[in-house]
Structure formats: structure tokens, C-alpha cells
């Protein structure tokens, strides 16, 4: 499909599929919108007509992207789907948005989300909740907090969407909408220009239909940024690459099972094709080797629905059939991780959200009620915050304020930090690759370690929105139980759709999310593993994609 056609289709879809409420702000659609994108269209057209004159800027050149509403964009307001930041215009583009625009991508709009990223179903938005209307019948949850980004990709309104992941906000929507959602390692992508929810957990994530797109986007954004003190610098990146190549060398000397039939090209070269080596330095052919896959027993929780458990099983058997080794592992702090997350994230949120007082930006609500002596009944700050924030945000601010108070810090915040440390150590102990942030020397691989951990992304298929109305906030928190451990440990994790049993495919939801977690810094290999082993080769997914394609243009 040509770029122009795709751009037009994206714009048309923004108008056509407005019912899913995926956008907070977007380029004007219809006839007026055509004027606005004319420049872009012309650019794409000339490129197509004279390909020699217009070297593509990158592999992303001409692609349509959507940005989550809590990431700075110079052209659209950044409201974080919150009433308190309504119409807030950021001073410039976020680092990641800037990188995308430099690569030639076009930002089509800002996607809807849970207010400040707090929620699991993208319903806590001042613009109204996101509706997952992809499957006929009652509207389902699009997942949260990046539900808008996921729906925009699913609706064909953009090719790739940028989102943020704090405790599963990219992976859960991807799982609920049957897309691929990738949360990179903490610190790989710059957070400069990302309105923080919980700084120590926030990461910029990517949602797309195809792992190839995600890999391309990730490569474009994966670079050091001096404006973000938590973005890992060039030296650390080099060290991570060294660690990985050391592992590769070690692996290639040990007993390896080749899964694929060696291609003629590969026979020619003693090791691997040269062109691929150039394209993926340090990662050459990683996914062509048999991997050790860890299956954490603790993730098989009682709340897991049958279809999810069945899909998990099928994925594992499929990998086993392809020659990978499946080993059971134990991550006992998984249950405590959820509690720790819901102490730490609100604590940081209560601190981060203290700045919204209606003085410098956002909306200001003055109190109309006055006392007899004409002074307002409450200060400007408190009135603005009371009117501007949604219920979930207020709930988490209160939670966080308490867990940081002198009465609560020892029992909650400090304990949660300890659990977080335990979770990190636990992950480090199961991976064969040492954590490059904790090891500065290249240590020999443990023979028992695993390369990836595979578990479900969400305990259930997407719930119906109507059912959520009767559920408590705590039920929503439970949805994050499988995604928060990777967030706490800062590990890269990706959610890929896995087909559910054929008998329920078209009546219920076609697939559920399966999560793959890798060691810190192993991002590219992880996406490639998913691309090669879980997505591209799966006939059923391809079948599903065709079915989906028929439905949407």
C-alpha cells in the first residue's frame, strides 16, 4: 500500500471510527483535514514519483503515528486526558516525538488514555472512556492506560502508536486489542517530555500490529538523551552490547541446536550472513538458536481464565515444537509485587501531581462559594485540584500521600521498596544474561539460566465495559498482577497476541496477550525473538490478521 493511500486511509479512519474515542486531539478529518495534510501528501507523492530524488529519511519515513496524550507534542496540546491540564500546550516536542518526526513520521493526533496513566481500562478520561468496539457485541475494555493508542492502531488510524508503560499500560491494551505492545528496558528511551506518573517506573512504549514496525521504531528512538538523567548513556549502552556479544560468543562455542535448515547462504559463510551481521551488530542470528524459555509457576494464578491458560499452553507447546527448551522457574515475590507497585506508583504520583495547582498552567477553578466576609471557603489550590482531577487520580494521590506520611512510610513505602529490590534480584537470578546495571564485569553464563520468560499479559480476555461499572477499583488493580513485576524490575517486556481455542475464536475474542520478558538491555533480541518465533511464523495469527484486514479496509 502506498504511503499516500495509507495516510489518507488513516485520516478517513480517524473520522470513521470516532466511536471508539481513541483520540483526544487529532488532525482535522474530512475535506478540511485534507488541506491540512496536503503538504504531507505532496511530499509522499513526490517521493513515490521520483524515488531517486528522495532518499527515504528512515524506514519510518512517511508512516503515520499517534502519540499518547501524556507525551509532549508541539502541534497538539498535551492534556494527559485530565481536566486539570485541559489545553496545556507543551513548550516543544518530547525527545521521542522529535526523533520520530526527524525520521519522517507524521503525527496524526494525541490518543486517549486514563487520566495521567492511572487506570487499567482507559475509562478515566475527561474526554470520555475509550471503547473497544472491534468485536461485534457489547463494547469491551481497550485496556489501560494506553487504550487510545491501541485502539488507534487497531482501527487503522495510524500504523504505530507511542504510549507509556508504568505498570503494564502498553502491554495490557495490546493484549486486549490483539496487538503487539512493547515496553523497553527502563532508561532505553528518553522520558524527556513525558509527563510523569511514577518516574521510577515510567517507560515509553510502542504499540503496533507488526513486530517489524516495533523494531524499526525502537531503533529510531533508542539513543542516549542528556536531558533525561535516567536515560542510560552511551557508555552503558556499549557495555550492554559487549555483554551480549560475549554471551553470543560463549553460546556459539557450546552445544547449540540449530532449528532451521541452514540456508545456502549460511553454508557459504562459516557463521552467519554478512549483511545481517551488519544490520544487527552484536545480535547476529540470536533468534536462530534454541532459547531457554522460563515458565514461572507463580503466574499460573487462580484468577487466570481458561482461554488465557489454554493460549499460554499452546504458545509453549509451539515453542517446544520448534526446538526451544521450556523450563519451569519460580518467581515467588510476584504476588507481593502488585502490592508494592500500588504503594510505590501512587507515592510517586502524589509527589508528581503536587504541581497542578492552577497557577502556572492548566485550568484554574476559582471558588464561587464565599464566606460572609467575602473570602473563599477554600484556597485556590484545593478548589482547582478538587475540580480538575478525576476520582481515580484523587484516590491514588490520597493513597500515595498516606504511604509517604510519617505514619505510613515505614510500613508501606520502605517495605515496598524492599519488595521491589527482591523482585529485581529474583529476575536476575533466573536469567542467563547478567543484569548489566548490576554487573560491571562479564561473568560466565549460568547453564541453568533462561533467556526469556513467557507468561500471560492479562489474567482474562478484555472484560465488557458494562461489567466494569459494577466492579471496584481494586478489581482493576488486579489486572496488572502479571505486568507489574517486569515494570518494577525495569525489564523489557512485550505482549504478543496468541490465538485462543478455535471453537471460541469468532464468538468470543480471537486472541489473548502473551507476555515475553527479557533481561535488562536485551530489548532488540526480545523483539526479534517475538517476530521470528511467535508472530511471523504463526499461521493462526496470520489467519486472524487476514480476517481483521477484511473487516478494516
Amino acid at each position, binding site marked *: 500500500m502506498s504511503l499516500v493511500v495509507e495516510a489518507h486511509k488513516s485520516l478517513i479512519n480517524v473520522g470513521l471510527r470516532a466511536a471508539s474515542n481513541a483520540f483526544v486531539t487529532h488532525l482535522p478529518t474530512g475535506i478540511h483535514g485534507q488541506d491540512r495534510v496536503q503538504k504531507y501528501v505532496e511530499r509522499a507523492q513526490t517521493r513515490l514519483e521520483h524515488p531517486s530524488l528522495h532518499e527515504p529519511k528512515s524506514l519510518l519515513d512517511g508512516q503515520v503515528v499517534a502519540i499518547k496524550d*501524556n*507525551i*509532549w507534542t508541539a502541534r497538539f496540546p*498535551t492534556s*494527559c486526558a485530565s481536566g486539570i*491540564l485541559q489545553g*496545556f500546550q*507543551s*513548550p516543544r516536542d*518530547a525527545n521521542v516525538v522529535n526523533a520520530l518526526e526527524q525520521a519522517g513520521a507524521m503525527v496524526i493526533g494525541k490518543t486517549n488514555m486514563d487520566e495521567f496513566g492511572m487506570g487499567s481500562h482507559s475509562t478515566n478520561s475527561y474526554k470520555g472512556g475509550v471503547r473497544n468496539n472491534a468485536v461485534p457485541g457489547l463494547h469491551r475494555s481497550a485496556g489501560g492506560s494506553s487504550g487510545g493508542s491501541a485502539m488507534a492502531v487497531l482501527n487503522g488510524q495510524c500504523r504505530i502508536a507511542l504510549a507509556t508503560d508504568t505498570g503494564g499500560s502498553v502491554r495490557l491494551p495490546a493484549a486486549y486489542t490483539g496487538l503487539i505492545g512493547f515496553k523497553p528496558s527502563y532508561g532505553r528511551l528518553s*522520558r*524527556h*517530555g*513525558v*509527563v*510523569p506518573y*511514577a*518516574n*521510577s517506573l515510567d517507560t515509553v512504549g510502542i504499540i503496533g500490529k507488526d513486530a517489524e514496525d516495533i523494531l524499526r521504531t525502537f531503533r529510531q528512538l533508542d539513543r542516549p538523551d*542528556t*536531558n*533525561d*538523567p*535516567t536515560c542510560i548513556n552511551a557508555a552503558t549502552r556499549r557495555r550492554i552490547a559487549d555483554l551480549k556479544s560475549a554471551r553470543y560468543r560463549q553460546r556459539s562455542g557450546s552445544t547449540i541446536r540449530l532449528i532451521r535448515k541452514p540456508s545456502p547462504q549460511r553454508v557459504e559463510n562459516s557463521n552467519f550472513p554478512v549483511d545481517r551481521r551488519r544490520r544487527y551488530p552484536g545480535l547476529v542470528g540470536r533468534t536462530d538458536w534454541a532459547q531457554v524459555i522460563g515458565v514461572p509457576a507463580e503466574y499460573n494464578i487462580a484468577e487466570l481464565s481458561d482461554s488465557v491458560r489454554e493460549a499460554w499452553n499452546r504458545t509453549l507447546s509451539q515453542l517446544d515444537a520448534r526446538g526451544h527448551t521450556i523450563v519451569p522457574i519460580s518467581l515467588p515475590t510476584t504476588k507481593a509485587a502488585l502490592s508494592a507497585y500500588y504503594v510505590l506508583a501512587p*507515592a*510517586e504520583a*502524589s*509527589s508528581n*501531581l*503536587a*504541581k*497542578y*495547582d492552577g*497557577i*502556572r*498552567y492548566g485550568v484554574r477553578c476559582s471558588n464561587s462559594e464565599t464566606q460572609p466576609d467575602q473570602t473563599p471557603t477554600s484556597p485556590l*489550590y484545593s478548589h482547582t485540584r478538587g475540580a480538575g482531577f478525576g476520582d481515580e487520580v484523587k484516590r491514588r494521590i490520597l493513597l500515595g*500521600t498516606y504511604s*509517604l*506520611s*510519617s505514619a505510613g*512510610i515505614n510500613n508501606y*513505602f520502605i517495605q515496598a521498596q524492599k519488595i521491589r529490590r527482591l523482585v529485581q534480584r529474583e529476575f536476575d537470578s533466573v536469567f542467563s544474561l547478567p543484569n548489566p546495571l548490576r554487573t560491571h564485569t562479564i561473568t560466565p553464563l549460568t547453564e541453568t539460566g533462561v533467556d526469556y520468560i513467557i507468561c500471560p499479559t492479562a489474567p482474562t480476555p478484555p472484560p465488557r465495559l458494562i461489567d466494569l461499572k459494577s466492579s471496584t477499583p481494586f478489581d482493576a488493580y488486579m489486572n496488572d498482577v502479571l505486568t507489574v513485576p517486569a515494570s518494577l524490575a525495569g525489564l523489557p517486556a512485550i505482549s504478543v497476541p496468541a490465538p485462543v481455542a478455535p471453537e471460541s475464536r469468532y464468538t468470543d475474542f480471537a486472541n489473548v496477550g502473551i507476555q515475553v520478558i527479557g533481561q535488562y538491555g536485551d530489548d532488540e533480541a526480545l523483539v526479534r525473538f517475538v517476530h521470528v518465533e511467535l508472530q511471523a511464523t504463526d499461521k493462526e495469527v496470520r489467519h486472524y490478521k487476514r480476517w481483521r484486514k477484511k473487516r478494516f479496509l
Partner: protein
Amino acid sequence: MPPWKLRYARACNIFPIPNGVDIDCIAFRRPCPDVAIRSTIRKLFRSTQRTSYTTQVAGAVALRKQLKDEAKVKRAAGSTSTSPSPPSIQQMLKDWELTVGIEIHAQLNTARKLFSHAATSINDEPNTHVAFFDVAIPGSLPKFQNATLIPALRAAIALECRIQHISRFDRKHYFYHDQPAGYQLTQYYEPFAKNGCITLTEDDGIGRMDGKAGQPLIEIISLPQIHSPETAAAYVRKIQAILLAVDAVTTGMEMGGLRADVNVSVRRRDGPLGNSEYSGITGLGQRTEIKNLSTLKGVEEAIKAERDRQISILEAGGAVDGETRGWSLTAPTVTRRLRGKEGEVDYRYMPDPDIAPITIGADVIEYLAKTLPKLPNQLLTMLTEDKRYRLSMTDAKILLQLDDGERLEYYTSVVEKLNNICRDLEAEVDLGSTGQLAANWVMHELGSLLTRADRSWKDTQVPSAKLASILANLMSKKITGNSAKQVLKLIFDGDGREVGAIIREEGLVYRPLSGEEYADLASKVLEQHNDKVKQIREKGQTGKLMFLVGQMMRAGEEGRVDAKEAESVLHRILLEEPSQKRA
């Protein structure tokens, strides 16, 4: 340049990185691009810095005076106090012991804010040096400015703190109008320096860095170990002098560079111990805090007022509430309630997730300690005890006080050059006296010239080499004191010639008179003043001899009569010759 003169106008601008030294943490990897802007900032600051240095040295010297005064006050039982407590309180003071703990906030001398690239400036228009982070734009991230560590470290070294290898920043939450983020970044759990100690009193000088409205501050917190208002004021004065001396802060209290919060409690000397406790010191009475004192006088007065208030309450059988109080210059004898315990803020300290821990390498500390300017006390010791100077304490203090230390630099340079000249000439001069001589000339002769001409100190007017040369000529008796003064005056007024040339061309070379010439001159003078001769010879009024010496000086050729020589000649003629004759 003498080592103590290593003064950094704006600390991080000219901080030299030692070549070849691997600084493992303070790596200035990214030089600031806007050099032009930075230099203007430096210029802007010159003016304010000048004034601040005057106060610095005044503060430094006044410390001893302050302590002396304090002792005097003690002797006089508070009679010299500016606002004496009522007599009833005076009586009660014997029964009550005062305990004071002080928290000093000092604004660091840095070019940048603590967490953004924006410049710190007190002279520019408000809101002109603002980065996104400073106004807490959602999505902006802090950028720790390594260079701000340098003045903070200098302060910590000067206060003999234990500097921590790793320190971290925490968020301190409260709503305040000058605080856009809703929290202040401070070092609460792991400050960068601990357990300082200054000579005045043992204290737990915890140094921590804050960023309030982006301006880097350090907090110096003392243990509650101070027991008199005067000592408290002296403590603050001393800290201020030290901070200014090592160039850790821009201005003193007068310019708002320093603020103090004091915690005051009283307890009966013979009564049961109080229930309150602070940092390991137990048995204290209920304390109240007086916030934001901006003058030294204020510290003293506020403590006195609060002490008197607390004693009155307790004597009347009441109880002191733990509260925050304020004090103002307009009503110096009272403190007023700002907020009570119910208004106390739970700051909800949380480690900042964005700012990496700060690692301070031992080599950086070592380097800074080596290049630290000398403290006022060390300078005084140097001037009075070093065999090159050997000044009296009074002279040393005056020298230290003049022209924000530039006079002192000039003085040491003169002494050094003078000693060099004398050594080269191998002249038979008393090297031990050069210090005092140079001090007299630098302070008094140059000083009087300056006052008479109504000019301010300018280093370039009389280069130190020229003054040294004049003094060398004087010491080797090539010119007389009067001639030396003339030469100095000429140079001071802008004569560009060399000292030797001036002496030669103005005919100031001291040609001593021969014995006969002295005798002739003496007899000439004696003839004119027969009455005096009689008085001396017959009544033995030897004091009159000096009058005759003066007459000889006046009668003789200018610059040639040496007073000592004249005196000895007169002595011989008037007193010895007659007795010889008699014999």
C-alpha cells in the same frame, strides 16, 4: 599569586580541573556552550561581590571582638545588652538554662541553578533565567549541575565536615508560593556532609544541599548545644565568615545570602530533665522554632525574646507549645506565633527517582582542600606568628579588614619583594623588622595618602615592587624617612619613573654629613639657643636635647641631617665634652 588568594569569582566558571587527575564523579563532560553569557554574569556579580567581601572580613575580625564583648557582657551581668531583659527575668535567668540549636541556610555561590542550566542571578529582571524544570513544566526533568558541588564542598571542608562518598536527593513536599513543583529537592536521608566542627563550639554541622526556586542552598544544622544568645550570634557570625572566606556563598546576611532558623528551649537548672530530645541530646525542654532570621542582631534578639517569653510562661505555671514563631525588627523584644503544632507540615520525604546519587571522589575533596583559601583565623595566625611578618594582633586585624583583603595581598607581596631585594643586595639590614616596616608603610603611609587624596584602594597606583624598592633604600639608609615619603608621594601621584631614578633625579640621595659638618651645624644651633644649652648643662634637662636636634634638622640641608647622628653630636658637645674638660 599567594594560595589564599585563589578566590573564585563565580565558583564553577573558573574552577580549574587538575590536568591528568581522573575525577571520577565531577566530570565536566559537557562544557556550557554560552561562554559569552557566563562572562556577563560574572561581570554583573563583581559589584555585589566587592561589597560582600568587606562584610566578610569585618565579620571575621569582629568575631573575636564579639567574643570579648560577650565576656564583658557576662562580667557586667548584661548591663551592656541593647535591650536588657526586665529585672524579674534577670533574676530568673539564674534558675533557667537556655538551649539553642541553629539551622543556617546559605545560598551557594554558583553560576547555575542546582537542577537546571538556567543562571542564578540576583541582579537581573525576575523570570529571565528560567528553565522548564524551574517552573515545574510537567514533563521536564532535572539536570544536576555538577559545578554547584564545588562551593558546597568548599564549605564542608572549611567546616571540617565528614564528606560522604555517596549522597542522594529527596523531595520535601509542601505547598508554597515560591515552589512550583510542590516539593523542594533536598538531601534528607543522605546528606553530602556530616559531623562538622568549628572551633567556637562542637556542633553537628550537617551540610545538605537544597534547591529552592532553583537556587542552590546549603543547610548547616547545629546540635542544641548553645546556651546563650550571644554565643548563638557569634556562631552564626563565625559560620558566615568562614563561608565567605572560602567563597562558598555570594553574600552575607545583609544581602540575604544567609538565613537562620533558631530552635529555643529552656529548662530549670536544678529541676527535672525535660522530655524533648533532638539528635541524641536528651532532657531538653519543649522547643519553639523562630524562622527566617536575616540579621545577626536578629538572631541574638529573637533568642532573648523567646527565652524570656518561655521563662515567663513556665514561671507562671504554664506550658510552652511546640510552635513556629516569627520575629521582626520592628518589635525586637517579642516573638509572634506563626503556626502551631496543628499547622505542622508532614513533609513526606521521598527519594527523588529522577536524580542519580551523587558520588564524590576523594581526589576532588583533596584537590579542593588543597586550593581552599585560608580562613580568617589562619590568616591572623600567619601574620602574627610567621617570622616574615610578626605583626601585632591589632595591626594584623586592621590589615585583614582593609579593602576586602586586597591590602593584605599587597602587603605580603611587598614583604616578599623587599626580602628578595635585601637578599640580593646582601645588605646588612635586619630582616626580622621588614614585616613591621612594610606594614607601617602599607597601612599608614599609603593609607594617609589615600585619605588625603580621597581615593579608594587601587593596586596599580603604587606597584608593590616600587614600594619594596623604596623601603629597601630606606633600610639600607640610602634615603631618609622623609625622602622616602616624598618618593612615595610622587609615585602615588602618578610618577612613572623607577624609584632609583626618582631618588637620583630629585636629589634625594642621602649624603651623610661628615663629623666636622655636624659639629659646625651643632655649634651654629647652640649659639642661637643659649638658654636651652644652659638649662641642659646646669639643670640637667636632657629632654631639651630633642628640641635642639629638631633645630639642627631644620637648619641643615634637607634630607641630609640624620636625627640620631645629630643627637649623638649634640650629646657629645653638651654633656660629654664639659665633663671631660672638668676631668
